[in-house]
């Protein structure tokens, strides 16, 4: 059962990594196990929970739904790459300010998805926020404060 591997070069949070991966390796497993980006987590096996959400060339993807080889030559941003020079990303700050997290397990994915949502629609209504986050599950917060956090971040961006 020897497996062939494929070389990939992927930039993650600003650092370029060159690795050998199995063709079947999911991006999330590559990030967690080979690059050590354990800030990005796995919550399901059916691409329903969004906990694994990262940005691939600037757009949010569920990294359990992408093969590592598909990300070859791309730039990935994870939740670990958002803070710049000790300053939180406005969406990170808003999650903190609005108590948009409790256990924090959904949070990396929620933050990455929220950023994408605001990139696409800088001034979303509550309904647009709620439908934009539909692919990300949170069991702790009841979403109330997550919605508030996105609203705060949107306000800050204006």
């Amino acid at each position, binding site marked *: 059962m020897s497996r062939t591997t494929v070389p990939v070069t992927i930039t993650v949070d600003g650092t370029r990594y060159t690795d050998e991966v199995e063709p079947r390796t999911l991006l999330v497993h590559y990030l967690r196990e080979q690059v050590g980006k354990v800030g990005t987590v796995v919550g399901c096996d*059916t691409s329903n929970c969004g906990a694994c959400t990262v940005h691939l060339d600037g757009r949010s993807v569920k990294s359990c739904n992408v093969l590592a080889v598909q990300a070859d030559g791309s730039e990935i941003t994870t939740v670990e790459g958002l803070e710049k020079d000790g300053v939180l990303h406005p969406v990170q700050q808003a999650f*903190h300010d609005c108590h948009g997290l409790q256990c924090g*397990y959904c949070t990396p994915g929620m933050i990455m998805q929220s950023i994408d949502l605001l990139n696409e629609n800088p001034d979303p209504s509550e309904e647009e926020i709620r439908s934009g986050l539909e692919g990300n599950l949170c069991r702790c*917060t*009841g*979403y109330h404060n997550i919605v508030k956090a996105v609203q705060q971040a949107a306000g800050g961006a204006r």
Partner: protein
Amino acid sequence: MTVTEDRPSVEPEIGQARKRKEDYRLITGRTRWTDNIVLPGMLHLAMVRSPFAHATITAIDASEARNAPNVVAVLTGADVAEVQGPLPCAWPITEDQKAPVHPAIAVDRVAFAGEVVAVVIARSAVAARDAAELVDVDYEDLPAALDLKDAAADTTLAHPDLGTNTSATWIFDSAEAGTGSPVEDAISTARDGGILLEREYRQQRLIPAFMEPRSTVVDPTGEQITMWSATQVPHILKIMLAMTQGIPESKLRVIAPDVGGGFGGKLQVTPEEVITLMAARRTGKPCKYTETRSESLMAGHHGRDQWQKLTLAATADGTVTGLKVELLADMGAYLGLVTPGIPILGAFMFNAIYKFPAYHFSCTNIFTNKTWTDAYRGAGRPEATFAIERLMDELAHEVGVDPLAIREKNWIKHEEFPFATVAGLEYDSGNYEAATAKARELFGYDELRAEQKRRRESGDPVQLGIGVSTFTEMCGLAPSRVLGSLNYGAGGWEHASVRMLPTGKVEVITGTSAHGQGHATAFSQIIADRLGVAFDDIEVLHGDTQVSHKGLDTYGSRSLVVGGEALVRAADKVIERARPIAAHMLEASADDLDFEAGRFSVRGTDQGVAMAEIALAVFAAHDLPDGVEPSLDAEATYDPVNFNYPHGTHLCALEIDTETGGVRMRKYACVDDIGNVINPLIVAGQVHGGLVQGIAQALWEEAVHDDAGTLVSASFVDYLVPTAADTISFDIEHTTTPALTNSLGTKGVGEAGTIASTPAVVNAVVDALRPFGVSDVRMPCTPERIWKAIHARDGADDGGGATAEAAMPHFDEDQAGANDEGAGR
């Protein structure tokens, strides 16, 4: 040394909406989830699980798996039968309770689909999973006990050796206990000119569905075996493993690192934890197991799952006179850590906030061939609150008054506290009038009732339903003597210690184990006020049995009301230890010292010394009073004297499209009285999250099995955890009646939203459908069930919508036809 200064008066920390100190690592991904842990030479586990609900294992051929690349070992039940020990149940509710042995790896028979039959240990998770596919297990299918009522009748036996599916029956009777009169008298009086409500409600099976799948790492190297686990209960886990695995407790260390939610679902000693421990001891290498989501949904314990037969007696004007509760509770295939006690926790809460003079509760625990049930947010109390709050709406309908009015007629008035209840508890404080008045206003109750009337009169296809729930709960588990009287295997105290570091920082160690609740922040606020130390100078340590050597962990809304009180007492001891030293430093008498805002001062002078200065002086220990130990550190173990009774009024408005059965939540307002609030931000979060879990039981979630006993809802495609798009923003406020049983006047809040919201939502559904003659819709109230309930009087099958007709045969047959309420519509 003793400099005088004008100190700015500091705002108390308690009550401030402090942003959480635990957030930074969580929002930047610097987290320590168990699955993140990697150790040298680590091996990975994959489980082989039974696809059958009930079967004999006739043969296991693991040779191909053993030969697969990078596989180190495969263990079957037979390989570990002698050493694996039984999984513990800490709560035998009766002396004669029946229970099957619960193995970590099934040896010759499986009793639910998802039970582990073998484990593959390999050098990578992928290799382990690949090889698990190669393990060949031969099963001989056995008939499975699946339906709870059939199982109660012993139609099919879940465990043939037990000879019955009944595990135990537990009874409380107010006449026997001396807390009330005989319920049968109340029932026969009510039959004759009063009101008798006979109902049967279903509490469907739910899945806790915490977002972090369970994961365990065991490192057998070094002097102590270390286990990291995604658990709510590191202390209980350590003790139970020591007792069942033949490891001295002192050779085990359990760490709950960052834990991604629990909701009762991680209040367990799991087969997977024991298997990972066995694998590490066998191989001598660190081992890791992380479950997939489908394994989590299938094999992590489930919650609820009851049939509730209820008889409420009242006078013709709607004054309640008696309540009889008969439960069938589905244990599933085994008794987990506290499985049998969960429905019993409800025994004390069916009477709720109402003045029932007579009460009878019985619960029969039944085995089926399903995943075992155990704690899930609220644990026994949501079931009780649902039943009574649904019944109060039915009573209001019967009498023809507003549902709030019938409650007010029967609830304990604020001047009647302390109140000894018919279930034997003493409610220390509460003010149901105040919470209800505030909730009415917040909700816009009268306007919404007016709108409902308009829609009814105009025959609007979209009808409005208004649901009420005036709940209370008992929380702060628990006075140890009460647990003892209920046969629970442990106490309910909590431990805390405070370490005063020489640099002025303070370490607070708690035996509670947070997994999202914000203890680090809230406990820092408490200590900041108590000791006058800056919020940021306080570090809260927990979840590692070598750091927090003693504790009973986090569940049952206990951490603040029990753990917080332990903390206060430890802090007070620090102050008392510091006092003679301060007196010595100030050359004053200890009796002349006042302690305020972190500073001892000599009464009537401007001389004083700050706690940090004392800590440094104690560290140096150069000049302490004779015989005084050079330490300020202190610990306290607190055993609560009573439970704690938060309450609140929850109001829900739903729009129901009567043409499609579709439901849209219009407004949800609640006013909870949780006593004094330490941090309103954290409290609001607990309420919001709790509400959505309770609403989800009412509208969406159910663990569904097929005829063969396979869990159909074994992924997030089928198990409907609500999304942001399914939910709305909530209006929440508080009234404050401080608890009288702890220093801070706090009450529990973790479970309140979940307990209160389910009946509020179902009451709203039924309220919208009353004009169609509907008096019940079974949970989850799906559009299909709602549509069928609406059309049932046109002769259509009600689709299992209503449960009342099923209730009748259980009650007095002669009276069944006579009481038209009993017919359900």
